[in-house]
């Protein structure tokens, strides 16, 4: 047994275990499935490479390395498609094309693996075992892999910035993790170096450990810790693994030299002794490393950092609130300036035009309307910003919906709007009845306004129906969790253009000729306060649907 193979075996089994673990956590999620594939490909790559180091026969080593190599080739498209899956709406068309190009190039590698000198030139015997020398196709593929790996790191970083801008803190953290883990994965390509000449022991597996651990953490953990803490941990462990590998290989090399020179044989005993030394020194070494890194790189210890991280999150939320208030104030200023301008102009002309009866009639109508408008804006704004505490009591969703529809029966009749109710049950939830009525009222009023010449208003309790374009800002969902109830309200109006979907819950966003643009913001506020979620879906020309997800508890 070649002792250089051991780290490969260890890392390959470790990565495969993570892959199985991630798949077991949620085998239906596409990203978990792709990660499993990624772990499987990594396992085959490292395992077969490890195996080949132990093989003395050239042709057998060649076959083993080819299997390992083809698996490594698969990693590029798998990692890339994994990234596209996670990026979701942040991906661009060019990236999808690049994904298919990576598949095409991988297929070429498969085709030419057995053609001499195109992909693989020959095997060279190094001190750790046989290793291939790459042909022109391998060089091209390695360069392509590098390019798209850097693009992937950039795309995740960019998506993180965008998510932060949209105040989506969770996605921001998640994208930061992926960006970081990929940038750690890129140096794993040091394994390519011996393929082009330099005799450097392929230690890429050190980076594979850090990458797979980070990605597993990002996929499995629901609430992520701040990325700084994880950087620190992964830094410590990567360094630790590097040091351990270095110690292990040094012991093996020296002992092998001594044993071969003096006794002429190699012993498995050395590996056992080396492993024991490492096992004994592992914890004190980790502790020391952690201290050194904390002291010289991060200045404070991890517990303090966690505390700081918590404070930082609170501060960030506070800043987000301030930003929302600033947006609100800017919107409100704009809305109020229009009526103020009319009032100011009419007041200015009052002394000179007072005798003109037409002026007087317009004055009383317009000034009075504009004052009402300002009053209405202020009223709605107060309602929007009022930090009114929720008074939660168990109440029936059907009763809340029916009572709200009852208020509107005249409006519905006058607008020739037919109401279809599909109540798949009558869940009783802990709600603030008045606030929830206000939320439904605003949605219904919105629906009535978009169907001036009649239509159908459909109210569902249960699974969502229809829906094409999604409101990305507020996180679209394709599934309903068991612990939540979904209420869907659909209209048959003109629908919401795709470009407006991301903004319809923003304060003062309106496309109507009249209206303050606060109605749906109020709805969003009420639903969020209840711990629920609201999303809008629409296909231009075929109506809009609002899905409201409320927790059963």
């Amino acid at each position, binding site marked *: 047994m070649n002792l250089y193979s051991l780290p490969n075996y260890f890392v390959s089994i470790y990565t495969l275990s993570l892959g199985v673990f991630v798949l077991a956590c949620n085998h239906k999620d596409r990203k978990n499935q792709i990660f499993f594939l990624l772990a499987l490909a990594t396992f085959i790559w490292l395992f077969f490479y490890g195996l080949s180091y132990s093989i003395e026969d050239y042709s057998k080593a060649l076959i083993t390395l080819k299997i390992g190599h083809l698996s490594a080739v698969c990693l590029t498209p798998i990692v890339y498609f994994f990234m596209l899956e996670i990026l979701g709406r942040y991906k661009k068309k060019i990236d999808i094309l690049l994904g298919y190009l990576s598949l095409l190039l991988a297929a070429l590698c498969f085709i030419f693996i057995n053609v001499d000198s195109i992909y693989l030139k020959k095997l060279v015997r190094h001190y750790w075992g046989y290793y291939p020398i790459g042909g022109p196709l391998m060089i091209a593929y390695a360069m392509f892999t590098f390019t798209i790996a850097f693009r992937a790191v950039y795309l995740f970083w960019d998506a993180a910035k965008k998510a932060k801008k949209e105040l989506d803190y969770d996605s921001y953290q998640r994208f930061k993790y992926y960006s970081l883990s990929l940038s750690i994965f890129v140096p794993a390509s040091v394994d390519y170096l011996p393929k082009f000449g330099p005799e450097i022991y392929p230690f890429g597996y050190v980076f594979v450990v850090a990458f797979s651990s980070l990605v597993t953490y990002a996929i499995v953990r629901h609430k992520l810790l701040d990325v700084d803490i994880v950087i620190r941990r992964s830094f410590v462990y990567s360094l630790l693994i590097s040091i351990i590998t270095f110690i292990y290989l040094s012991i093996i090399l020296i002992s092998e030299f001594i044993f071969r020179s003096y006794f002429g044989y190699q012993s498995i005993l050395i590996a056992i002794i080396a492993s024991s030394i490492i096992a004994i020194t592992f914890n004190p070494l980790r502790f020391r490393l952690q201290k050194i890194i904390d002291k010289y790189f991060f200045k404070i210890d991890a517990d303090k950092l966690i505390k700081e991280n918590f404070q930082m999150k609170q501060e960030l939320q506070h800043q987000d609130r301030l930003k929302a208030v600033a947006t609100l104030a800017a919107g409100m*200023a*704009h*809305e109020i*300036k*229009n*009526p*103020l*301008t*009319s009032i*100011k*102009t*009419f007041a*200015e*002309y009052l002394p000179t*035009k007072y005798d003109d009866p037409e*002026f007087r009639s*317009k004055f009383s109508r*317009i000034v009075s*309307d*504009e004052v009402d408008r300002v009053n209405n804006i202020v009223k709605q704004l107060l309602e929007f910003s009022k930090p009114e505490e929720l008074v939660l009591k168990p109440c029936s969703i059907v009763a809340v919906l029916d009572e709200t529809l009852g208020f509107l029966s005249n409006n519905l009749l006058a607008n020739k709007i037919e109401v279809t109710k599909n109540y798949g049950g009558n869940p009783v939830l802990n709600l603030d009845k008045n606030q929830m009525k206000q939320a439904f009222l605003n949605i219904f009023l919105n629906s009535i306004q978009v169907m001036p010449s009649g239509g159908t208003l459909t109210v569902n309790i249960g699974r969502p129906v229809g829906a094409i374009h999604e409101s990305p800002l507020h996180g679209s969902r394709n599934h309903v969790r068991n612990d939540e109830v979904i209420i869907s309200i659909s209209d048959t109006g003109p629908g919401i253009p795709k470009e407006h979907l991301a903004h319809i819950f923003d304060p003062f966003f309106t*496309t*109507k*000729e009249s209206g303050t643009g606060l109605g749906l913001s109020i709805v969003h506020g009420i639903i969020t306060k209840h711990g629920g979620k609201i999303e809008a879906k629409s296909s231009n020309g075929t109506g809009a649907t609002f899905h409201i997800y409320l927790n059963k508890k």
Partner: protein
Amino acid sequence: MSLTRSKPIVLVCDDEEGLRESFKLILSDTYELKFASNGLEAMEILKTSTPSAMLLDIKMPKQNGMDTLKQIKKLKPSLPVLIVTGYQSVEMAQEALKHGAADYIPKPFDSKKILATISKIIK
């Protein structure tokens, strides 16, 4: 026989009646006014007539003022357009001027300032 010089035409594009009536009060003695309540209406009017100046709001339904300004500059590059809006930001003013607006007045405005600016941009 008396010679009556016809008044210069000013096109006012604003979605709010209160504002349109305000402009009427300020400008009707000096200018002949045409009104549009959104960008699309304004473009229709501009196809058949050439006013001496135009007042344009930014936030309007159907087609906003900035998009309208870009279209106007393609159709009638020499028409002086005065942006009158409640958005009081340097960026907005710069954006409007970049797209060819003659000037920028924030709301609420002073009637004398409106009159002075229009007479300046018509010259």
